[in-house]
């Protein structure tokens, strides 16, 4: 009968069905906000596949935790894990969270795409955040008949760890045992404890056992978790809980001779929900000792071995050799740092890729981490790949241990490139003369200042400010002047009138130094006649006094009559001097010159010049 019950509780399905669903707490998010993506993976198997997240270029994705629950349904295990991701939007626009996949063997499942709109902070709707999952009801209080410390109750749960004073990063196995002496009417649901400050790895459930406690026989189901404390100090494993339904009032002894009668009659009775909680456990985590810590220690804690192999020990220079370096043992393999390979100047060493092979059992996590790289011998001869040192802390011995691989000797024959004539090596072609970059660094300091004066001059010119307005102002003034000058040159009548006064004064000046009365008086007469001709736009030759006086009255109607009379008088005096030169004296010419000068000045003023 025990075997039958154990078989019912433990029998695994032939094909593990997997399902996945995803939900977000909001579909419109502001740029300064965030949304919570909840992914739930379920499978009726002991191990759960990890969700495969799609590329989310519009978000920064942060993992916010994982919670796992395990359900026992008539001997079958239903496993469910809920992954929470916080998505912080990076770019405004419409984003799509693509299908998230999960694969378990030949079974595949994926979620539907979720459309999310990312808006500016001021455009964000004021909507309350929707819960990512249906809200859970109030936790059931511990029920009568249930207890957490062991004893003769029909169901109870215990929790323990294999060590309470581990070192940092040392593996601690946390074991929860669910005892029940009655048939379970519903599904027993396991909610793991809070393990802040520790990495956790779920271990596979062990087989069902039976135990006799205080004269009562119990079925015992175990859940195990491997924990790795990250920092020294007090770390608390919180309360884990199991929720189940037991038969109310009537207890059925699965080992009694009338089990089937009790079992079927129990189906007619009501079930009673029971919530069992484990007690918190506090670990006192010790720091790794500083004494004896080797340089290059990467934090590995556990028990490990290291080995290195090559796929071919006899090659030609320039041929690729696959170097495989393996660390295996028990401990937190995921946290192992990449090995630091020794300097190998005779080889060109390419990038290292690693893969993790991890196995879990009831005692913890073990497995191997494999690092693969390609090395290419650059020269021929017997070349040695030096030993690779791997340091770890062994908590059992409480000391640091160094595991070294064996050196590997390669027999390298001259390669084709080395035998060929040395020449220019095009990019991408491997040859013995190719330059290998061993490391990258910044370039060295300058010992000469360079063309600082040119830069300073450029800065001075660029920073001259309002001084740059000067040429523009000059250009504008020059253009204005040129326009005025062009217009002036295109109107000869006005130009002649403008020049009249100055030309007449020049003639009067010349008359003072002229030789002889005739020439001097002629210049004075010319000054008056040409002035009037220029101002009245008349030809100077043949201009008569009558014409001049008529035009003056016509052009300048506001001109005082005295001015016109003075013109007539001087004109007559000028003709007298011209036609009776023998009676003329120097004083007459000088007097006439002064009178013409005064007249011209009066005319200029009277006509607005």
């Amino acid at each position, binding site marked *: 009968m025990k075997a039958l019950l154990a078989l019912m509780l433990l029998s695994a399905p032939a094909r593990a069905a997997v399902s996945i669903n995803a939900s977000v707490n909001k579909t419109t998010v502001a740029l300064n906000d965030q949304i919570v993506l909840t992914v739930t993976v379920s499978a009726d198997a002991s191990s759960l596949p990890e969700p495969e997240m799609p590329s989310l270029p519009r978000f920064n994705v942060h993992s916010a935790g994982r919670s796992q629950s395990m359900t026992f349904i008539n001997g079958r295990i239903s496993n469910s894990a809920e992954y929470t991701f916080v998505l912080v939007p990076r770019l405004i626009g419409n984003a799509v969270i693509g299908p998230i996949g999960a694969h378990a063997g030949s079974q595949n499942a994926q979620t539907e795409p979720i459309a999310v709109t990312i808006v500016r902070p001021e455009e964000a709707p004021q909507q309350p955040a929707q819960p990512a999952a249906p809200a859970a009801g109030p936790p059931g209080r511990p029920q009568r008949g249930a207890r957490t410390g062991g004893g003769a109750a029909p169901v109870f749960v215990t929790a323990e760890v294999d060590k309470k004073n581990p070192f940092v990063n040392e593996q601690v196995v946390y074991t929860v045992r669910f005892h029940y002496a009655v048939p379970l009417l519903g599904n027993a649901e396991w909610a793991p404890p809070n393990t802040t400050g520790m990495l956790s790895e779920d271990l596979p459930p062990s087989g069902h056992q039976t135990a006799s406690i205080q004269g009562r026989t119990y079925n015992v189901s175990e859940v195990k978790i491997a924990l790795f404390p990250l920092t020294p100090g007090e770390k608390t494993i919180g309360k884990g809980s199991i929720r189940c339904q037991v038969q109310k009032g009537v207890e059925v002894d699965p080992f009694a001779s009338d089990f089937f009668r009790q079992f079927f009659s129990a189906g007619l009775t009501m079930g009673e929900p029971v919530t069992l909680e484990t007690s918190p456990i506090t670990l006192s985590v010790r720091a790794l000792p500083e004494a004896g810590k080797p340089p290059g220690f990467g934090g590995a804690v556990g028990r490990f071995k290291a080995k290195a192999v090559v796929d071919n020990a006899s090659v030609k220079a320039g041929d690729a050799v696959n170097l495989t370096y393996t660390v295996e043992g028990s401990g937190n393999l995921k946290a192992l740092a990449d090995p630091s390979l020794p300097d190998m100047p005779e080889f060109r060493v390419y990038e290292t890729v690693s893969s993790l092979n991890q196995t879990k059992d009831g005692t913890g996590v073990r497995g191997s981490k494999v690092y693969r790289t390609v090395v290419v011998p650059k020269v021929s001869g017997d070349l040695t790949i030096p030993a690779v040192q791997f340091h770890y802390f062994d908590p059992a011995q409480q000391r640091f241990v160094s595991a070294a691989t064996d050196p590997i000797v390669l027999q390298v024959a001259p390669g084709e490139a080395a035998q060929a004539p040395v020449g220019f090596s095009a990019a991408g072609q491997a040859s013995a003369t190719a330059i290998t970059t061993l490391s990258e660094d910044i370039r060295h300091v300058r010992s000469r200042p360079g063309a600082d004066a040119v*830069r300073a*001059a450029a800065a001075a*010119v*660029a920073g001259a400010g309002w*001084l740059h307005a000067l040429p523009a102002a*000059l250009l504008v003034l*020059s253009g204005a002047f040129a326009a005025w000058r062009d217009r002036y040159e295109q109107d000869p009548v006005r130009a002649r009138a403008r020049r009249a006064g100055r030309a007449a004064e020049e003639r009067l000046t010349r008359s003072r130094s002229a030789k002889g009365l005739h020439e001097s008086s002629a210049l004075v007469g010319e000054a008056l006649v040409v002035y009037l001709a220029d101002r009245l736009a008349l030809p100077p030759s043949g201009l008569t006094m009558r014409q001049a006086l008529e035009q003056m009255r016509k052009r300048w109607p506001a001109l005082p009559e005295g001015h016109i009379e003075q013109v007539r008088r001087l004109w007559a005096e000028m003709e007298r001097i011209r036609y009776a030169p023998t009676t003329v004296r120097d004083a007459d010419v000088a007097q006439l010159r002064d009178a013409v000068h005064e007249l011209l000045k009066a005319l200029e003023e009277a006509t607005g010049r």
Partner: protein
Amino acid sequence: MRALPLTLLLLAPASALASPPPERLEAANRLYEASLFTEAADSYRELLAQSPHSAALHYNLGNAYFRQGTPGALGKAIASYFRAFRLDPRDGDIRANLDFALRRSGEELAPAGMPPAVFLLYNLLSARELAALFWLAFWAACLSGSAAFLAARARAAVRPVAFAAAAGAVFFGAWWALRLSSGFKAPAVVTLQDAEVRSGPGENFPVNFKVPEGRRVERLDEKGPWFEIGVPREGLKGWILKTSVEPVG
């Protein structure tokens, strides 16, 4: 009138024209080569106070910061390299070191998708050189234009010069305007690892995101001890303490 640009140069502060004395530069370099990077950085800073336009000094100071390897040193190194790059974008060593340092903060000198040749051509001249060339061409165009207006007889000979200078002013002006409208206008470099950027200028505002040390950001505004910054690559903005960034402009 044609001598006016030269006059402007003569009016420029003498300190701006001075290069660092070779013997003092050599002394600072000896400190650097003796791995006394803090002392070397002090010496370079003293020299920069006298020769602020020396790209070589900014470059050497960036090297001294980079070698220090202390918290904040990477950001200061990038700020110094960036100043050197803005002064002399044609210098291959400056570009190499700036790019090398930027990669440590998750950035690259050339924008993603831009061919290297285009980036080099676009940065062939510094913004100051472009401005200076624009103003010189502007002066030449205005002066030759004025000469063409005033000297009617020489107008035919001067006119091609004026047009060529005007075309040069348009070309360099457009290039300069393009440079000013693109890239960083008021840059700064983050000098604190995972510097917190908040949604407002105060500790009571929530932290929106964190910026790694060495990341170049744009200064948008300031209020008290806070800068409002934009992170062009991610399209984010927020408020950061002034003590967490070093302005470059």
